[in-house]
C-alpha cells in the first residue's frame, strides 16, 4: 500500500480535528444564558461603517458602532433622538451651522488596537475622523454622496489628498466633546444622515491597527462586540464598556394600542442589553430560513416566505395567522422603506428623448402603453403574497409626504388601453423597438423577466423583440446601469431616511448616469422644484412641491412604478422585541429580551 496516502489521510485527519476544536466556543453550560438568534437573507460584506451600504451591513454596524443620533425604538412614524449626542443639534438661524454636543464618558470596546488593550474615551474628534474617512478614496467609501458638496471644505479636503492632519473648516471639534458642522447650503436631512450606519464612529487606532481587515475586526462603542463572523453567521456579545442607560418606554414612543401585544412594556425601566449573546444567521433561501425558524431551538426571527403564506396565514387581508402559529409566534407586518420599480432610460432614442419631436411624442405613448400593460397586481400576487402596496408615482407610502389621494390610473392594468394607445401612435410588431431586458442570474429574476415579457406580448410586443441579457454579477449590471447601456432599469430602492427627497433625487437631472438617476430623466421644471425643496424644512409647501414633481414623473411616463413590499415578520413568543428593518434597523436588537418560554409573562402574550 502507498504510505504517502496514509500520511496524507493522517494530515487530513489532523486538519479536521483542528477545525472541530476551533469551532464556536459554546456558552458555559449550566448557566441560563439568553441568546437571541436572528436571521437575515444575506451576509454583509463589510462591517466598516464607510462601506455599510447594504441593509445587512447596517443591521450589524448599528450594533457594533454608535451614531450621534438614532431613531426612537417604538415611535412611528419614525423620530430621531440623540444617542452619542447629548441633545438634538443646535442649528443657526440661517440653517447652515450645526452644533452637536457629544456625551462624556463613552468608551470604545477593549481591543488590542488600543494601548494596553483598554478602550479609550470617544471624543468629537473621532466623529470628525469617521466622517472624513468617507472622503478618503483608499477606504472605498460608499456613502460619501450623502455629504458631497454639502459641508464647507470637505470636498476640497479630498481634492487636496485626504490628509487627516488637515483641518476642515466646516467639520470641526470646538471642544473635545462638541462637533460643529458648517454647510454650504441648508441640508434639512443632515441629522437623518447622522443616524445612518455610515455615520458610525470609529477609533483611528483600530483602523490603523487592522488596516484593510478593519472591515472584519470592528471596534466601536456600540452595545455589542463581535466574537466571530463568517459567511454563515455572526456572533456578538454585549460590549463591556457600553454605557448603562435605563429604557424610558414613553420617551421611546411606546403605543400601547398597537404594541402591547408584543410585550415590549416589560423592558420599561430596565437597562439593556438583556441578552447574553446575539447570533445573526445569514440564510439566503426563504424556505431554509423558515424551516429553521419553525424548529424551536434554531433561529427565533424570520420573515414569512412568499411560498409559505397559504399554509401559515388564514387570510392576507388583514394578515392573520393560522391559530396554531399565532399561539407560537408574534407577527408584525412591516411596510418596507423603499419600493421596486422600473424606469425607462430616457437617453435611449428608441424609448426616450429623440431629436425628432414626433418620434419623441410616439415614444411617450409607447412608454405609457407599456406602463399600462404592466400587471402590478399579478406581480404582487405572485411574488409578494398579494399584500405589497402598489402605488402610483415615486413617493412611497412609508414617507410622511405620501399622497394617498393620488390617481391610481398609472398602476391600473389595462392591456386593451395599451394596445389601442400603441395602435393610435403607429406602433405595431414591425415598428416596435427591440427592448433589452437586463438581469442578474437566478430563477427569480428570470421569472420576473418572463412575466414582463408575457405582459408585453399581450399588448402586442413580439416575443423576439424582448431580449434577455444576463449579467454575470451584480457589479456588471450596475455597470450597465451606470453607463446607460440598458433601455429599462428594474431595481429596488431602499430609503436612507424617511423623507421623499431620498426618492425624488432618483429623477433629478444632475444625478444622471453615472449617478442615481438611471433613467436619465431631465426636466428643467422638475429640477428647479427639486432644488427649491432641497433647502426647505418639512412644510406643506415642500410637500406640495414634492407632489408636483411626482406628478411630472407620472405624466411623462418615465417609470413603471411602483410597489412597496410588506414583510410579515414572525418571532418566537418568548422573544420580547419589536423588530424593524427600516430606520431603527438592527438597533432594535439592543432592546431584545428573551424569556423562558414557560414564563407567565410569555403565557400572557399567547
Amino acid at each position, binding site marked *: 500500500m502507498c504510505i504517502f496516502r496514509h500520511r496524507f489521510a493522517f494530515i487530513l485527519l489532523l486538519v479536521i480535528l483542528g477545525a472541530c476544536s476551533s469551532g464556536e466556543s459554546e456558552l458555559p453550560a449550566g448557566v441560563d444564558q439568553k441568546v437571541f438568534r436572528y436571521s437575515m437573507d444575506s451576509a454583509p460584506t463589510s462591517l466598516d461603517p464607510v462601506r455599510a451600504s447594504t441593509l445587512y451591513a447596517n443591521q450589524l454596524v448599528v450594533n457594533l458602532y454608535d451614531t450621534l443620533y438614532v431613531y426612537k425604538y417604538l415611535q412611528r412614524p419614525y423620530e430621531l433622538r440623540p444617542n452619542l449626542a447629548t441633545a438634538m443639534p443646535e442649528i443657526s438661524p440661517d440653517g447652515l451651522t450645526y452644533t452637536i454636543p457629544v456625551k462624556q464618558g463613552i468608551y470604545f470596546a477593549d481591543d488590542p488596537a488600543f494601548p494596553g488593550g483598554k478602550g479609550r474615551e470617544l471624543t468629537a474628534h473621532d466623529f470628525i475622523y469617521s466622517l472624513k474617512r468617507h472622503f478618503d478614496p483608499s477606504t472605498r467609501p460608499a456613502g460619501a454622496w450623502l455629504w458631497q458638496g454639502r459641508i464647507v471644505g470637505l470636498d476640497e479636503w479630498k481634492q487636496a489628498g485626504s490628509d487627516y492632519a488637515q483641518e476642515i473648516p466646516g467639520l470641526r471639534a470646538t471642544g473635545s466633546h462638541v462637533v460643529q458642522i458648517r454647510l454650504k447650503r441648508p441640508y434639512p436631512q443632515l441629522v437623518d444622515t447622522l443616524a445612518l450606519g455610515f455615520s458610525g464612529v470609529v477609533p483611528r487606532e483600530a483602523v490603523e491597527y487592522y488596516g484593510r481587515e478593519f472591515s472584519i475586526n470592528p471596534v466601536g462603542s456600540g452595545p455589542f462586540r463581535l466574537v466571530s463572523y463568517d459567511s454563515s453567521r455572526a456572533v456578538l456579545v454585549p460590549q463591556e464598556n457600553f454605557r448603562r442607560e435605563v429604557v424610558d418606554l414613553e420617551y421611546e414612543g411606546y403605543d400601547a394600542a398597537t404594541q402591547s401585544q408584543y410585550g415590549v412594556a416589560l423592558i420599561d425601566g430596565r437597562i439593556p442589553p438583556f441578552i447574553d449573546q446575539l447570533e445573526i444567521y445569514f440564510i439566503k*433561501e426563504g424556505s431554509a430560513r*423558515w424551516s429553521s425558524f419553525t424548529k424551536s431551538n434554531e433561529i427565533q426571527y424570520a420573515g414569512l*416566505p412568499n*411560498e409559505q403564506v397559504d*399554509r401559515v396565514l388564514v387570510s392576507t387581508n388583514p394578515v392573520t395567522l393560522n391559530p396554531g402559529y399565532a399561539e407560537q409566534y408574534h407577527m408584525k407586518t412591516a411596510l418596507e422603506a423603499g419600493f421596486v420599480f422600473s424606469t425607462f432610460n430616457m437617453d435611449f432614442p428608441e424609448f426616450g428623448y429623440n431629436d425628432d419631436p414626433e418620434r419623441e411624442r410616439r415614444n411617450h405613448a409607447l412608454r405609457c402603453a407599456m406602463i399600462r400593460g404592466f400587471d402590478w397586481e399579478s406581480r404582487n400576487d*405572485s411574488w409578494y403574497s398579494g399584500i405589497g402596496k402598489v402605488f402610483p408615482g415615486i413617493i412611497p407610502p412609508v414617507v410622511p409626504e405620501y399622497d394617498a389621494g393620488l390617481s391610481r390610473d398609472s398602476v391600473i392594468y389595462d392591456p386593451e388601453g395599451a394596445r389601442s394607445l400603441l395602435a393610435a401612435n403607429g406602433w405595431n410588431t414591425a415598428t416596435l423597438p427591440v427592448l433589452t431586458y437586463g438581469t442578474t442570474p437566478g430563477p427569480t429574476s428570470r421569472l420576473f423577466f*418572463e412575466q414582463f415579457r408575457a405582459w408585453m*406580448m399581450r399588448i402586442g410586443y413580439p416575443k423576439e423583440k424582448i431580449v434577455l441579457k444576463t449579467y454575470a454579477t451584480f457589479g*456588471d449590471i450596475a455597470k450597465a446601469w451606470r453607463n446607460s447601456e440598458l433601455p429599462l432599469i428594474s431595481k429596488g430602492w431602499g430609503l436612507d431616511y424617511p423623507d421623499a427627497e431620498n426618492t425624488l433625487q432618483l429623477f433629478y437631472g444632475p444625478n444622471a448616469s453615472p449617478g442615481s438617476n438611471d433613467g436619465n430623466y431631465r426636466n428643467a421644471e422638475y429640477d428647479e422644484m427639486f432644488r427649491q425643496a432641497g433647502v426647505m424644512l418639512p412644510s406643506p409647501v415642500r410637500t406640495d412641491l414634492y407632489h408636483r414633481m411626482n406628478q411630472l414623473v407620472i405624466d411623462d411616463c418615465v417609470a413603471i412604478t411602483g410597489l412597496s413590499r410588506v414583510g410579515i415578520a414572525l418571532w418566537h413568543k418568548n422573544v420580547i422585541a419589536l423588530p424593524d428593518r427600516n430606520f431603527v434597523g438592527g438597533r432594535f436588537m439592543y432592546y431584545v429580551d428573551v424569556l423562558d418560554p414557560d414564563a407567565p409573562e410569555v403565557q400572557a402574550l399567547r
Partner: protein
Amino acid sequence: MSARAEVAVSVGAHGDSLWSKALRKFRRDRVGMWSLAVVLAYAVVALGVVLGLWAGDWADVSGPKWAPVSGEYWFGTNIIGQDIFARSLYSTRTAFEVGLVVALGATALGAVLGSTAGFFSGSWIDEVIIWLMGVLDSVPFILLVAAISYTLQGSPWAMHIAMIATFWIGTARLIRGEVIKLKSLEYVEAAHAIGVSRFMIIFRHILPNTFHILLVQATLSFVAAIKSEVILSFLGLGVKDGMSWGLMISESTFEVLAGFFNNFIAASVLMFGLVMAFNMFSDALQDALDPRTVK
C-alpha cells in the same frame, strides 16, 4: 482468459466488419434497443417543439399561481402561472440542443486535437496539446464556466462553449492513444510511402478508424452535458433565455420545502428518464462496438 479467447475465436469465425457485427450485436441487446426507443421518443418530443407542434405557449403566464395538476394543466402551473407541462416539453428541446451541440463540438474538437497530437506524438505539437489538456483539466469546471461566461458577457453560448472546452479532453486522450497505435499499422505506413499528405493521412486514413470511439464518446458527452446543464443553471451559469430542466429545478429549490413539487418532479423525472436511457444506450453501444466482448 485464454479459455474465453478460444471461445471468442471460434464464435467470431465468420469474417465481418466491425460495424455490421456491432449492429447485429446491438439489435440483440434488449436493454439497448429499449433505451434507444426511449431516447428516440424524447427526440420526437424535442423535434415537435422545434417544428412548433407543441409547447409553443410555454412562456404564457395566463394560468393561476401554483395550480395543482388538472385536466387543463397536466403538471400544474408555476408561481407566475406558466404551464409546467409545456415548459417540460420545451425543456426537452433545450436538453437536445445542449446535448447535441456539446456532444458534436466536444467530440469533433477532441477528434481533431487528439488525432493531431497522436499523429505528431513526441513533437512539439503533441507537447502543446498535452499541455493544453493539462491546463484545462486543472481549472475547476465551474470556475471555467464562470470565467468563460464573464468573458462572453452573458452570451447564451457561454455554457456550451465551456462544456466543449472541458469535455473534449477525454475524447482527445483516447483518440491520441488510438492514433499512436494506428499510425504504426501497415496501411498508414504504406500511405506515407506513396506520399499521401499528413493531413490526408490523419483525416482520411486514421480518423475513420477511430469512429467507434468517437461515437461512444459523443453519447457520453451528451449525457454529461445534460447533467451539467442542471447544475450550471442552478448556479446561474447555465441556460439564459428559454427554458430547461435545470432552470425548472433551480426554480423548484425555493418551492419544494413549501410543498410545491410540480416543477421539481416534472423536470427531474423527465431528465432522469432521458439520462438513464442514454446511459443504457451508451453502454449497449460500447458493448456492441467492443471487439473484445463476445456477448
